[in-house]
């Protein structure tokens, strides 16, 4: 065989190996599609507004504020932490309410930098977080309010903002229409997306009354979940039931009915939202 053939064959094999590895050795993550644009106006309910805030948060803020690594502080305890921060001698802002603190943190993050999260070399006086109303994030005032609504509701505080009447045609860059390929904005949306309500009675969601349930009634999970499997607390049991449904079968129901692929289909965030939701008293 001529040198040319041998060398070409070798080069092709090598390229084939790299390509093959990229296809079969690496998980084929499907990236989020570019965000669509929608309206925010006064006809939205507070729940829709909060859900919109959640979807913006998932898409935009969760990249850093998810608790993975130490890129940005987690925001789950902001309801109790904000007062400490406002009273901290390092605080340079003007907020006196949670809503004002949240808004300030979003548009002027360097006003107060949580210890350890500042830009290197600036002793926590400069935040690496951008002003969310500008640049790549570019949230409109209404979208910022939606995120505030979400954060307030997540912190268990009263939602103090409401959807403003926006000028017609002014769309938020990051508001996503429900049902897009992104993560469901809250537990109810997630439960609906994965059609849990088709088989189970669920708290807070209207079921198909009168039809025989294909799966156990889940409205009282909060009370019973921690006794169903030895060694598993309520959350762990609920999680197991979703990821490995046949591990524990409720009395009167049959194995092999509930789909076993929610682990593949669900986002991690959606799973956790559902677990938390079902484990709560309703």
């Amino acid at each position, binding site marked *: 065989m001529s040198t040319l053939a041998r060398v070409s064959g070798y080069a092709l094999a090598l390229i084939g190996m790299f390509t093959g590895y*990229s296809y079969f050795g690496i998980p084929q993550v499907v990236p989020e599609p570019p965000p669509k644009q929608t309206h925010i106006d006064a006809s939205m309910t507070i729940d829709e507004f909060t859900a919109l805030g959640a979807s913006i948060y998932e898409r935009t803020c969760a990249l850093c504020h998810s608790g993975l690594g130490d890129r940005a502080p987690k925001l789950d305890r902001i309801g109790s932490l904000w007062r400490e921060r406002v009273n901290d001698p390092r605080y340079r802002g003007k907020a006196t309410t949670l809503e004002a603190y949240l808004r300030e943190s979003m548009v002027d993050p360097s006003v107060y930098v949580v210890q350890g999260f500042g830009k290197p070399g600036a002793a926590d006086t400069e935040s690496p977080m951008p002003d969310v109303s500008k640049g790549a994030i570019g949230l409109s005032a209404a979208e910022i309010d939606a995120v505030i609504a979400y954060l307030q509701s997540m912190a268990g505080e009263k939602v103090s903002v409401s959807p403003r009447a926006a000028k017609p045609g002014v769309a938020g860059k990051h508001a996503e229409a429900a049902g897009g390929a992104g993560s469901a904005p809250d537990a109810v949306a997630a439960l609906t997306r994965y059609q849990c309500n088709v088989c189970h009675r669920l708290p807070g969601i209207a079921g198909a009354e009168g039809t025989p349930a294909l799966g156990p009634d889940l409205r009282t999970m909060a009370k019973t979940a921690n006794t169903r499997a030895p060694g598993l607390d309520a959350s762990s049991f609920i999680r197991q039931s979703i990821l490995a449904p046949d591990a524990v079968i409720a009395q009167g129901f049959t194995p092999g009915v509930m789909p076993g692929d929610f682990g593949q289909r669900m986002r991690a965030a959606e799973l956790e939202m559902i677990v938390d939701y079902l484990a709560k008293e309703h």
Partner: protein
Amino acid sequence: MLLVFVLLLVIGGDFLLPHAYGQSQDAVEAGAAFQSGAPRLTLTDYPTYKGINSRVAVWIAAQLHLFFAAFVLGVPIFVLVIEFIGWRRRDLRYDRMAHEFIKISMGAFALTATSGGLLVFLLVVLYPALFAYLTHVFGPVMMLYALLFLAETVCLYVYYYGWDAMQGRLKPAHLLTGLALNIVGTVLLVLANSWATFMMAPSGVDAAGVFGGDAWAAVASPLWMPLNVHRFIANIAYGGAIVGAYAAYKFLSGRTAEEKAHYDWMGYTANWIAVVALLPLPFAGYWMTKEVYAYSQQMGITLMGGIFAWLFIIQAVLIGTIFLAANFYLWCGMGRLDGRSRTAYLVKYIAGVLVVCFLVWFTPHTLVMTAREISAIGGTHHPVLGPLGVMSAKNSAVNIMILATFLTYQLFRRSLIRDAPPWAARATRLQIAFYVAAVANIIGLGIYGYFVPANVRIGLSVPQVMTTLLLIVVCVVIDELIAARSGGASKVYWGRMPRRAQYALFTVAVAFTWLMGLMGYIRSSIRQHWHVYTVMRDGSADAFTLTIGHATAVVSVCVLLFLLLILFVFWLAGFGRTQEVTPRTAAATGLP
């Protein structure tokens, strides 16, 4: 032909592109179009043609242009250096080798221009609105760029065709021509870089995209200098790798011992250039990533912790391949010397170290996982291997790989020395002590990194790099002192190389090309759905980010096309007198 192309570009541009600085009513209107910033584009702003995927077409044209441009910019740099060395040492063999190197790349110049022209026309036809905006900002820069090609052409043709005529007294003039060629080439590189970095990190425009009129501000994006440094060095390495592949090919197809000796020597030199230039590249990459993070945390995290994180695992595989192949070539090269070297037993340990470091570098950390995967491994990171996936471990690994590679090279060089001075043994023990301390320092800093905040941990990478560099400097200085005061050098039997060693050179060239394609894809794609990040949104149907498999398939197509074309270039280089001179094995070794 280049002249015609340049003229076409200038005249054609006049018709196709809006005048940013003209006086006609059309010009005023066109100029006014950008007065409120970058246009908001919708699907209808993008002409589409059946059977052509606009994004892929532009991608392939751009990538081919980058492959060829890197090659033709990198080669003249080391050609000039080799010619200069030949002139200073009064050794004609270097002069002849430099001449042969540049001959190999001549056919590539036309292909660089062709692919560049193709890229421009595809952009104008398929992305007219984007190109109009870019010319609005960079008009004068682009015109300068086009005119500089005239200068490049003149310098190149005089440098190449005048080589034999400009010997003797005219040699300094020839060297100056080569210097001019490299200066013009570098200016072309940095000008073109500014358009790419503007799209990633726009400067000189406000948040809406309104251009302030200062061309320099638009050029000086925060990512501009890191990209300049990275591409300048990478071009040298790439040029060496491709020329090395040429030498390997000619070695394998050589029929006489003389031919084989000649191309073996050429392959060794080319590989040396490629590896030496490869060593600082990780740090140029770190600088670039640091600037990306500094410019936009969001972009930085998309790059390293988001959807592109897996691509860096593929990068690790490729770089591991390059390091292993380059080292393998050097190990085989020890066979060119008489007798079994005293230090040959170290090779298997070096190989082991390289493999371990590669595996550390290869370990992923922050990944996008499904709920089941998170549940299966008990958290978002692997309980055992997770800690290895962070910067601390990876930076340590890469520094150790570089040290191991340098050690391989050093062992080869030292085996050549005969009749070393009596103090050489102590000097060698000092060098070994430095190696021990360097490795301890690098690993120590790496472990320390786990116990400090993120910004300190990232900062530790600088002393790690400096440790590696200092060790290399210390060892090179001591080696040169020993060599200068030793009795002589061993005989090097150029040509005495196994065939499989030449495949190591092909591996370096192919892996390097593929790696460039992959990295270029990443750099471009972190813009995601923006033409110009945060300023001009991509409104086309292709605004989405591809999955890894699809993206790498396109990269592979680019690499295949490039290899086909470069085979054509090699074939052209084979016409006329191919080899210039064979190095005499009994005389000076002819090593750099």
